[in-house]
C-alpha cells in the first residue's frame, strides 16, 4: 500500500490554499476553452503554458491539468445544447445528447454527461494511482533499446488503430519527425534542414504547431461551416441532478466497459476520440434500449463521456511513467515538464515524489471540483456561446497569436503558427490525422536519440531490438500494429468474408 501513503502525501501538497485557487481558476478556464470553437484542451494548455513559467512546477501542473479536465467537461456542454462538438471526443455525445435537449431534457443529458465524465476520470485515476508506480519501477531498468521500442509501439499503434488511411497516418507522422529534426542536431551539433535560414535554426516548437493546427485550423473549419449558434437553453437544478443520478447505477456494467475501453485507448495512444465512438458503438450493441440510441437515450450520452474522460485521464499514465504522452494534450503537459526542468520518465517517481503525487492527487480533487463547477455554471457558459462568431473569432485568433509568440518570444513563430493553421485545415479536410504529427514533433528528438544510442551500443546491428524477451516482444507487437491494416485485410480475405469494400 505504498501507493496509498504516497497519495496521502500528495494531498498534503494540495493543502496549500493557493493550489486550490489555481485548480478552480484552471477548471473555469478549461470549461471556457472547451466551449469556445478553436480553443481546445491541447492548444488551450499550450497558450497558457508560458504564463505558468513564474509559478512553482507543482502549482503550474495543477493549474494546467485542471484546464485539461475543464476542457474535457466543457466539450459536453456544446454537444448537448448546440449540437456542436466543442472537442472531437464529444462528437459521439451529440448523437443522443442533442436529441435529449430538443425534447427538453437538456438538464438530464448534461448531468448524465458530466457525471459520466467524472466516473470515467475517477476510474482512470485509480488505475494511475496503483499502476503508475509499478510501471515506473519496471521502466527504471529500461535501456535506450527498450525506450525506442516503446516509442516504436506508440507510433505503430497510430497506424494500427487509427481510422484513417495507414498511408496518411505514416505521412503525417513522418512529417512530424522531419520537422522535429530541423535545427541543430543534439548529438553532432550539425545543422539539419535549416537551408541557411537563421529563424529555422531554432527548429519548430510543437507548442506553436499545436496552436496553429488545432486553433487556427479549427477556426477556418468553423468558418467554412458558416456557423450560426442555435442552442437550447439549459436548466439544471438540484432535482434534475438527483433524479438523473438515481438512474445511473443501473448502467454500471456499461460504464465499467466504457471505462475499460477508455483506459486502454488512453494508455496506448488511440486517444479519447476513438474511445468515445467505440464505447458508443458497444453500448448500442449491448444495451436493452439499443434501438433507441440516437433518439435521445441517457445511456448514449453517458457511455461516450465515460470513455472519453477515462482516455483523457489515463493518457497521463505513459506520460508520467515513461515520458511518452498518450494524447496531444498530454504531450503539451510533457512539454511543460521539460520547460520546468523536470525530466518525465521513471525517475520522476523517485526524484520528484511531491510533484508526481501532488499531480495525481489533484486529478482526484480537480475532477470533483470540475463536476461541481460545471453543474452550477452551465447557463453562464451556454450564454458565452451565444456571442456571435464574428466577435469570438478575431479574439481567439489574437489569443492564438499571443500564445505562439510567447513560446519563444519570436515574431517568426506567429507566421509559423498561421502556416500550421492552413496545414491543419487541409489535413482535417483530407483525413490526415493530427495527433501523430504532434506526437512525432514532440518525441522526435527523444525517439531519435534513443535509436542512435541503441545503434551505438549494438554497433549498428538491428538485432538489439530483439536481444531480450522484453524489447523483442514490444518490437514484435509494434510491427504487428504497423501491419495491422494489412493483416486484417488478409484475414478478411481468408475468412472469405464477402465485404471487400467495408474496410474503406
Amino acid at each position, binding site marked *: 500500500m505504498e501507493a496509498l501513503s504516497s497519495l496521502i502525501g500528495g494531498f498534503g501538497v494540495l493543502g496549500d490554499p493557493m493550489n486550490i485557487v489555481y485548480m478552480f481558476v484552471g477548471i473555469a478556464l478549461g470549461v471556457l476553452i472547451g466551449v469556445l470553437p478553436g480553443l481546445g484542451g491541447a492548444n488551450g494548455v499550450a497558450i497558457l503554458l508560458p504564463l505558468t513559467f513564474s509559478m512553482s512546477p507543482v502549482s503550474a501542473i495543477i493549474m494546467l491539468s485542471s484546464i485539461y479536465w475543464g476542457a474535457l467537461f466543457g466539450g459536453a456542454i456544446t454537444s448537448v445544447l448546440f449540437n456542436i462538438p466543442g472537442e472531437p471526443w464529444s462528437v459521439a455525445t451529440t448523437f443522443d445528447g442533442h436529441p435529449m435537449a430538443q425534447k427538453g431534457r437538456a438538464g438530464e443529458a448534461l448531468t448524465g454527461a458530466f457525471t459520466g465524465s467524472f466516473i470515467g476520470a475517477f476510474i482512470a485515476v485509480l488505475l494511475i494511482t496503483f499502476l503508475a508506480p509499478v510501471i515506473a519501477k519496471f521502466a527504471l531498468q529500461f535501456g535506450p533499446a527498450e525506450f525506442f521500442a516503446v516509442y516504436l509501439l506508440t507510433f505503430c499503434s497510430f497506424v494500427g488503430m487509427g481510422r484513417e488511411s495507414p498511408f496518411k497516418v505514416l505521412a503525417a507522422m513522418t512529417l512530424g519527425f*522531419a520537422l522535429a*529534426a530541423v535545427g541543430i542536431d543534439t548529438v553532432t551539433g550539425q545543422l539539419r534542414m535549416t537551408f541557411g535560414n537563421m529563424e529555422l535554426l531554432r527548429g519548430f516548437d510543437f507548442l506553436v504547431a499545436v496552436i496553429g493546427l488545432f486553433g487556427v485550423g479549427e477556426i477556418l473549419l468553423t468558418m467554412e461551416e458558416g456557423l450560426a449558434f442555435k442552442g437550447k437553453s439549459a436548466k439544471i437544478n438540484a432535482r434534475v441532478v438527483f433524479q438523473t443520478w438515481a438512474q445511473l447505477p443501473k448502467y454500471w456494467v456499461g460504464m465499467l466497459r466504457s471505462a475499460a475501453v477508455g483506459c486502454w485507448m488512453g494508455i496506448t495512444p488511440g486517444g479519447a476520440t476513438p474511445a468515445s465512438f467505440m464505447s458508443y458503438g458497444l453500448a448500442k450493441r449491448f444495451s436493452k434500449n439499443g434501438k433507441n440510441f440516437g433518439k435521445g437515450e441517457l445511456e448514449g450520452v453517458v457511455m461516450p463521456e465515460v470513455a472519453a474522460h477515462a482516455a483523457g485521464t489515463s493518457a497521463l499514465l505513459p506520460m508520467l511513467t515513461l515520458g511518452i504522452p498518450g494524447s496531444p494534450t498530454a504531450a503539451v503537459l510533457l512539454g511543460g515538464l521539460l520547460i520546468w526542468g523536470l525530466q518525465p520518465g521513471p525517475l520522476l517517481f523517485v526524484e520528484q515524489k511531491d510533484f508526481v503525487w501532488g499531480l495525481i492527487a489533484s486529478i482526484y480533487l480537480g475532477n470533483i471540483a470540475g463536476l461541481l463547477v460545471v453543474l452550477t455554471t452551465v447557463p453562464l457558459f451556454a450564454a458565452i456561446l451565444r456571442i456571435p462568431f*464574428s466577435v469570438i473569432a478575431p479574439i481567439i485568433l*489574437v489569443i492564438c*497569436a499571443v500564445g505562439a509568440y510567447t513560446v519563444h518570444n519570436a515574431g517568426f513563430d506567429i507566421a509559423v503558427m498561421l502556416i500550421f493553421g492552413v496545414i491543419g485545415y487541409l489535413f482535417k479536410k483530407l483525413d490526415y490525422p493530427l495527433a501523430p504529427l504532434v506526437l512525432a514533433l514532440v518525441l522526435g528528438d527523444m525517439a*531519435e536519440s534513443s535509436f542512435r544510442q541503441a545503434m551505438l551500443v549494438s554497433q549498428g546491428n538491428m538485432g538489439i531490438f530483439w536481444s531480450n524477451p522484453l524489447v523483442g516482444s514490444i518490437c514484435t507487437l509494434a510491427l504487428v500494429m504497423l501491419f495491422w491494416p494489412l493483416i486484417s485485410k488478409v484475414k478478411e480475405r481468408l475468412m472469405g468474408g464477402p465485404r471487400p469494400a467495408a474496410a474503406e
Partner: protein
Amino acid sequence: MATESDSSEHTVSTRTMDIIVALVFMGVAALVMADSWRIGARWASDGPEAGYFPFYVGLIMFLSSVGTLATNIFSKTPDRSNFVDREQLGSVLKVLVPTIVYVVLINFLGLYLSSMIFIAFFMWWLGKYPVKTILPVAIGVPLVLFVMFEIWFLVPLPKGPIETALGY
C-alpha cells in the same frame, strides 16, 4: 436548379486535392532526404551520422505518399465529391486573408495596436456591428492582454512605435 448550382460551386474534387497534397508530401520528403544525404546519412566510425535518422524518415514519408497517390489514382471508387464549395472557400478566405495581414502588421505596429485594428476590422466587415459595439471590444481585449501579460505575468509582447512613444 440543383445541378446548376452544383456546377457553379464546383472547385476541385477531394481526389484531386488528395493527389496534390500527396505530391507536396513527396516533394517535402525528397527535400528531407536530399538534405540528410548532404550532411551524411550513413554509418561513420563513431556511429550513425546526423542525417541517418531523418533520411529514413524522409524515405518512409516518400513511400507512404506514393501509397496515397496510388490509391487515389487507381481507386475504382474515387472520391469525386467537391473538396470545398466556392462559397465556403470564400468564407475561409475572409478569415485567412485578414489574419495574414494581421500577422504582417504585428511586425510593424506591435501586437496590441494590430490586434485592435484586426478585431475592429473583423467585427465591422463580417459582423456589420455599429461603432459603439466595436470600440469597447476592440480596445478592451488588447487592454486586458496588456494588463495580464505586461503587468501581471511580466511576459513582454511585441510592441511598436506607439507603445514606445507612450514610454513602454
